[in-house]
């Protein structure tokens, strides 16, 4: 990353601040504002674990591989349509930790690669005895972000969430992870 002037380098504190802000927007269900965190070409990606590492998302199936248009649909769906799987809606708590800048890994020029881990707790509350509701679940994930400095501030060019159980049967993952 020698081409990036030191003053413009993204430091761990600045990166963490963005990740914490993202976590809070998601936990407050401010999904429209979450959309604004991404660059126009940004990708929101939940790969499925394979022995050989990440498959090329274009020629394989991911749990989620969202470009801007698909992210917009995801948020529209959750907030503005009569959706059953988010009715009742998910409550979430995102814990972000182990934030680390990776200056050695390959990233597009100008992008900063950031690793972190997240623990995402989720629950949907309903009437007593309803299958699928009222039970808190916790998802552990190793995450990779690529951050890019744009005119309006630091933005997300990639959010990759590698869930511990990505290759296992997963029930209702329709909140924004």
């Amino acid at each position, binding site marked *: 990353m020698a081409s990036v002037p030191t003053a413009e380098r993204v430091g761990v504190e600045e990166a963490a601040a963005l990740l914490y802000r993202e976590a809070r927007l998601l936990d407050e269900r401010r999904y429209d504002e979450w959309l604004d965190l991404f660059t126009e070409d940004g990708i929101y990606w939940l790969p499925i674990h394979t022995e050989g590492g990440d498959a090329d998302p*274009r020629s394989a*199936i*991911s749990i989620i591989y969202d470009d801007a248009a698909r992210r917009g*649909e995801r948020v529209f769906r959750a907030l503005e349509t009569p959706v059953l799987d988010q009715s009742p809606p998910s409550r979430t708590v995102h814990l972000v930790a182990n934030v680390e800048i990776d200056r050695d890994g390959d990233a597009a020029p100008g992008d900063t690669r950031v690793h972190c881990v997240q623990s995402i707790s989720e629950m949907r509350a309903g009437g007593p005895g*309803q*299958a699928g509701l009222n039970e808190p679940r916790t998802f552990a994930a190793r995450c990779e972000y690529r951050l890019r400095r744009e005119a309006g501030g630091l933005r997300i060019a990639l959010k990759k969430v590698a869930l511990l159980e990505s*290759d296992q*049967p997963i*029930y209702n993952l329709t909140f924004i992870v």
Partner: protein
Amino acid sequence: MAQHAVTSFAGLVDDENGDFRLHTDIYTDPAVFDAEMRLIFERTWVYLGHESEIAAPGDYRTTTIGRQPVVFTRHEDGEVHVLLNRCRHRGAVVCRLDSGHSNFFRCPYHSWVYQNDGTLVGVAQASGYPEDFDKAGHGLLRAPRVATYRGLIFASLAPDGPTLEEHLGPVRPYVDWWFDRSPTGTITMISPPHKYPYDANWKWQAENGADGYHGNYVHASWQKLLERAGEAPVKDIKRYREGGCTRGFPYGHGLLERPGGLNPAASWTGRMMAKYPDYAEALRGRFSDDDIDEISARRNIFIFPNAYLFDTHIRSIRPVAVDRTEVSLRVYALDGVPEALNEGRYRAHERFYGPSGFGSPDDIEIFLSCQTGLKADGIDWILMSRGLHREEAVDGELVGHSTDETPTRSIYREWKRLMQNGAGPARSAALTAGVSHG
């Protein structure tokens, strides 16, 4: 709850006097589930996977037939074997992984080694057994019958019964047309799959894929999303969904069908042919326009008891318990089509299906709602009679309106036929004898 007059498994499907009702116990009674595993899953043909998943000699994948752990393999001679995943010595599974490549399976307990056709080739410290120990008689047990149809691998744990081709019967032409969307008539499965579990009975998923009645309601959100994307106004989607039909077949199969044709506005295949001239040319080189009309019809085809052929994937249903099910959605490439066409299919799949899709999770919420609601078992029966008065018998199949429960009734006619082998009253305590002698 009120005592009811049902005295046998078969009596749980009431298809007499011009009615069609299913008893609540079908979805909730562990004894019924146990009988289903023995009398249906361990007898009839069960779908395991596609040949392309074990393309090379040594490839294997593990799964279950009913509750029984199995591994299916490709031997060095190219043959597919389906082996019970249980060491003949003390019973440990000889393969714990999901899939992989190995010509041998070594039991982790005492290191007995089997070839991938089941042959026992090694007994550790063999001097502990007599010299004439019958190694040949202690291979991994093979499923008595294994057969493939156009690359789809099925196995039956019953030594006799209808052949796979007899079992598929009149649903075969529809399966053929489904494959013939590929100009080479073949598919290649891609990995990894989507998987989801749900805490409800396996038959909710079996019924729902060919149910054309729920879409306007359960998927109202999806229809709004398509409208927002500029793909079609909701009123047009609803009108389109009036078209097509449902079909029911012997041996429990059924399908939901939307009209095909070359009109890009009406048919996916028509759209793809317009978008990819090479694809259009390849299909036209092999098929007449009449054939293409059939090939391009969109169909969700249920193959009893556990498989669905969908436009983007093959779905398999794995019953775990009366109120627990796991479903795998394995996406395939259509062979011989432009790469961009398949890529478009993968992105379309992710949009609707899987744990984070815009369609599947809505369906699953309904399965859970049904399982919870059926705890109100003061009502004995659920209704499965929609369209019974208007479906027509045509050439060995029943054809109903696109919103009729014709395919589901086929499931339960076969269910009843197979479950008749288990006698006895339907309540748990009384069932055991009937099941074990069934």
